[in-house]
Structure formats: C-alpha cells, structure tokens
C-alpha cells in the first residue's frame, strides 16, 4: 500500500496560516485577537495517495481543507498545487482550479439542495464549467455517474428527501466526480452514517480511488476509518501538525504524547483486548485557539512535559524514516 517516497507531490503546503480576526464593539470594531485556526502547517500530499488528517474539534483540520479548496484565503503561506501557488489566485483562475479539486462534505442532508432533483444536482458543476454542453449527453453522463456510485440511474428524478443518508452521500460523491477531478477533499465524508452504511461508502471511495487514480485528503475524527483507508496520517492539535507518518507506523508506534492519548482514548470493539488495556484518559480540554499556550501548545495536558516545553515551540523532526514528530521529548 505504501507509496514510494519519491512519488511526485501533488500538493505542498508551506507555512500555511489561517487566522480569523476577533473583534469587539458594535460600531468601532476593535481588533482584540485572532483565532489561529491553522498556524503554520507544512505538509505534502503525493499524487495518488490518501492522506488522513485527524484531530479533535477545533484543531483546524476543516479550515485546512477549506484553504486547499480556496474557500478561504489563507493569511500567510503557500499552497503549491501541481507546482503552482494557489494561495493568492484570483476568482477567474480559481474557476479552472476547481475542475481539478473537489470536495465531499460530511452531512448529506445539508450539502444537497432540497429543491433540486438529484440529476440537476449532479449536472450543476458541468453546467457551471461548460462541460458537456449538450443536454442529452449531459443526462447520459449523470446516469453514468449515478451507476458509478452504486445508484440506479432513475434516482436522477428524485429529490434528496426521498433518499436515505447513504444514498445521499452517494449523490454527493457523484457530484464531486462530475468534473473528473484528480484531487478530492473528503471532509468527514462517512462520519454521519451508521456503521453498516459507512462500510459501503468507504468501499465505494476505495473503488473510485483505484479506478480514477484519485488523490484524497481524508479529514476525519474516526481513527479506525483512517487506519483502514489512508496511506499516511497527519495528526493536528490546535492549528498545528504534531505528528506525521505512514499509516501503520503511526498507529502501531505513535511518538507524540497527544497521538498516544488520542489512540488510547478510542475503545476497540473487542472486550478481551479492552480488558487487557491499561487506560487513563488524558486530562483537560483543548485550550482556546485565540490565546494558545506558549511553547508547545500541548504542554498543559502533556504527561511528559518539561520546563522547556513552556517556552520553545517544537518543530516537526524526522525521528525515524518518514516519521515526523513535533515534540522535544519524543525519541
């Protein structure tokens, strides 16, 4: 499964920052601080790979996805997509980019227009981008996309409310594929689904990846799904990547104390395994991203923190081949 390290990068983030201003006052809005949603991220996604991005609410994983999609204009840093920095592109250039980068959202209930029929939802991106201008050919393409995603082509005449959650998520996937993108941001794409349906969608995402050689950024909080689907995993905490490694290496040998806490917190569906695990949950909660702790942002909750952790922000270091950790104490 692991790709060669020399596979060409499709996406490179360099020093990516996304800060949202916090203001006070009704008329004269005073700038009193920033929510540092993404605060200096360097990351590479190789062509054809599935990179998992995990972390808890508010860690910045969704904002990072939105920056890559250029739904946000980053405060600082570069987003090099296929060699071109897209962080500062204007509207017109972004239109061309969006044919290549698509998104699948979490909630199939709110991400589909309830007044539009499924066929027209899937045809919309083709109309916007002037692909398949001929209506008959466009309809044929919609039917093809529906079958590709495991739905009967006659679903084109239905409304989203006539479908189950799993079927709606298939529609969302068909829409994302309509422009034949090469890169898809999957933002919690299976999180809202029941386990029996979730497995169907995971298999579909895998089939499509293999068939069209897609590259995925798979944003999720469910670590078991990430282990199943991804080749490499980045763990985020408070706007920063704290650990990055090949999938099995990260899960079998986590080095950052936050990753270790996160993995220990997830119960495994096996009572015998669970009975044998010594477990103490990590204390405290994620601090505010407006005023993050000094030095290493994890130090107030960290079981192995030393005095220096309060002062120095650790950079990602390659502790083992392809295993990067932002912790001064890890080895």
């Amino acid at each position, binding site marked *: 499964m692991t790709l060669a390290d020399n596979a060409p990068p499709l996406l490179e983030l360099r020093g990516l920052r996304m800060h949202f201003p916090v203001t006070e006052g009704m008329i004269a809005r005073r700038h009193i601080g920033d929510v540092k949603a993404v605060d200096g991220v360097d990351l590479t996604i190789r062509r054809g790979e599935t990179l998992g991005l995990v972390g808890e609410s508010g860690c910045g994983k969704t904002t990072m996805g939105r920056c890559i999609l250029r739904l946000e204009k980053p405060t600082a840093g570069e987003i090099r997509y296929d060699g071109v920095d897209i962080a500062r592109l204007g509207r017109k250039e972004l239109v061309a980019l969006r044919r290549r980068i698509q998104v699948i959202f979490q909630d199939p209930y709110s991400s589909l227009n309830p007044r539009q029929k499924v066929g027209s939802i899937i045809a919309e991106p083709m109309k916007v981008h002037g692909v398949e201008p001929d209506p008959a050919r466009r309809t044929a393409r919609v039917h093809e996309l529906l079958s590709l995603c495991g739905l009967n082509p006659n679903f084109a005449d239905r409304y989203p409310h006539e479908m189950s959650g799993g079927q709606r998520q298939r529609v969302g996937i068909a829409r994302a594929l309509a422009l034949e993108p090469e890169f898809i941001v999957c933002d919690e794409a299976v999180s809202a689904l029941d*386990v029996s349906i979730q497995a169907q969608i995971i298999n579909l995402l895998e089939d499509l990846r293999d068939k069209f050689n897609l590259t995925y950024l798979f944003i999720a909080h469910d670590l078991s799904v990430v282990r199943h689907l991804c080749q490499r995993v980045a763990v985020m905490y408070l706007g920063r990547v704290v650990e990055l490694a090949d999938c099995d290496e990260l899960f079998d040998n986590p080095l950052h104390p936050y990753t270790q806490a996160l993995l220990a917190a997830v119960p495994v569906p096996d009572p015998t395994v669970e009975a044998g695990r010594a477990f103490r949950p990590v204390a405290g*909660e994620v601090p505010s991203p407006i005023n993050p702790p000094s030095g290493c942002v994890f130090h107030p909750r960290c079981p192995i923190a030393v005095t220096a952790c309060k002062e120095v922000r650790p950079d990602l270091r390659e502790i083992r081949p392809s295993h990067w950790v932002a912790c001064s104490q890890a080895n």
Partner: protein
Amino acid sequence: MAPLLEVKDLYTEFRTGVGVVRAVDGISYTVEPGETVAIVGESGSGKSVSALSLLRLIPDPPGQISGGEIWFAGRDLMTLSEEEMRQIRGGDIGMVFQEPMTSLNPVLTIGRQITETIEQHRGGDVAAAQRRAIELLGLVGIADAERRLRQYPHQLSGGMRQRVMIAIALACDPKLIIADEPTTALDVTIQAQILELMQELTRRLGVALIVITHNLGVVARYAQRVNVMYAGRIVESGSAAALYHNPRHPYTIALLRSVPRLDRPRQSRLDPIDGAPPDLTRLDLGCSFRARCRFAIEKCAAAKPPLLPAGAPGQLSACFRSHDLALAGQAA
C-alpha cells in the same frame, strides 16, 4: 436476587401520516443492581425510544406505549400515576442525554438546575441543596465548584456540560442511570474522560447503568451485558464477551465485520451489510433482517424468530439458524 429492572414485552408505537411506526416491537430484558447493560443499534433501531419508554417520556400523541410491563424495584412503572412517575424520574432513575446543550435549560444557572432536582425530590432547605450541589460537582470532577454553580450552560464546554448532566443524574442517589448516547457529541479524549467518570462513579456508588450507543468500542470497554436492537426488536443479547467472540445472530456478525479496527493493520476490504434498514411502517410477519441476511431461508419470511438460548450460557438469539452460525460468527 430479583433484578432491579425487568422490562416485559414492551411495545411503543407512533401514529404518523404514513402509518403506524412500531418503534419498539416487544422487547424484554433485565438489569441487575449495579450492572452496566448496553443497548446497541443503528439509527431507527428503537434503542432511544425504548429508553424513553422506560421513563414514560413518549409524547402522546403521536406516540404511545401500547403494551408491556416495566418492573422497577418491585413496582410496575406502567401502573404509576404521572405524579409518582415524576418522583421516579431524576429520583430513583437518573438520566443523561446525548446533547447536554439542549437538555440543560439555557436561562438557568448550573447551580439552580442541580438544586431544583434536589428540592423537587428531597425537599429540605436551600442551603442544604447548595451544599449538596457543590459536593456533586466535586464528585464529577469540576474544580472551582462555587464559581461554576453561578455560570450558565453556554459558559461551559461540551465535556463540562455533560459532567453537569451526570451530577444532576446522581443528585438524588439513584439506583439506575439511563444514558442515551452520552458521549456521541464529544471528542474522543473528552468521550474517554466522561465514560471513565461514569464507570468509576456507578461502580463506587453501586448504581446500575443502561448505556445506549451505536459505538461497538464503547460497548466492549464498558458493558457487562449487551442487547443488540434491530427494527424495534432485541435480536441478540448476552455477555459482552459472548456476543463479540461468538455472535449467534447474522446482524451482530455483520455489524462486527463492517467496522474497521484501530488495533490491527488493514486486513482486507470491509464487508458491509447490503441494503438499508426496513421501513418501520411496513414490517411484515417475517424476520425484519432477512432482506439483508446472508443466512436467510424460506422459514424466515413466515414468522419472526423468537429470542431463544444460543451459544454461551445466558446468550439469546432471535434467529432460526442461530445454531448453524457458530462457525460463521467465530470468523468475524
């Protein structure tokens, strides 16, 4: 010893525009004093409605508990007056719901919501209720209790709010706590804190716990016994170890096979359950899982299989072929 709670043949239905929905379709189970029992199932399986039914919290209309008995500490809750039920709720039976933001009152302070419960059930003076509230917040691990009591729910994080819910549930020394998806809205590290807290407190105080969840990992870590629900019925029940290692119902087998594992490298493609759960307004005479079942035979269309002993002692399965499933289950 008599069980603390014995549910006998409970039915709950909702009359809707498209027909009668049989949300709970004749379930029976017991909970022993101090025991943790899980009810596990997917959306629409009836697990939450079954819990609300225990407390007679089904809005009528459109809902109705249409049959059954709920024996709790020697009394059938179905025969109690509304006033007697109010004494049970929050008294002998505490509740913790999924979304603490919607189950706490946004315009009352945390302190008022805790003392209200105490005064309602215990009477007594305001100062005593206040002291008990401070003690309860300490019990659930909230530091600086006196300041917290003056705060409103929106000033607390999700994890903190759920701790407050647990404090309220424990306020009147209950014998049983019903927790409906208590950690589903929380992040994993906070989920772990809350579940550890609930386990520690229920053990220490000898409180029985019914935990309703869709998370098979949570069940494996915290429950002694498990009831698996599908389309309003319990399809399998037994000890957690028996169900996970030797499941005897095709739905349990399929459920365990369809989740990826965190503790193992990827083995193969996932093995999902084909299709979707049935429409609860159009249930027929047969087994409701048969359309998605790999083991279905002709007989499955003719009648609903009863919950009968299968596998380990105390294990029950509602499947005509539960005895043929031993090998299939072990492969899961």
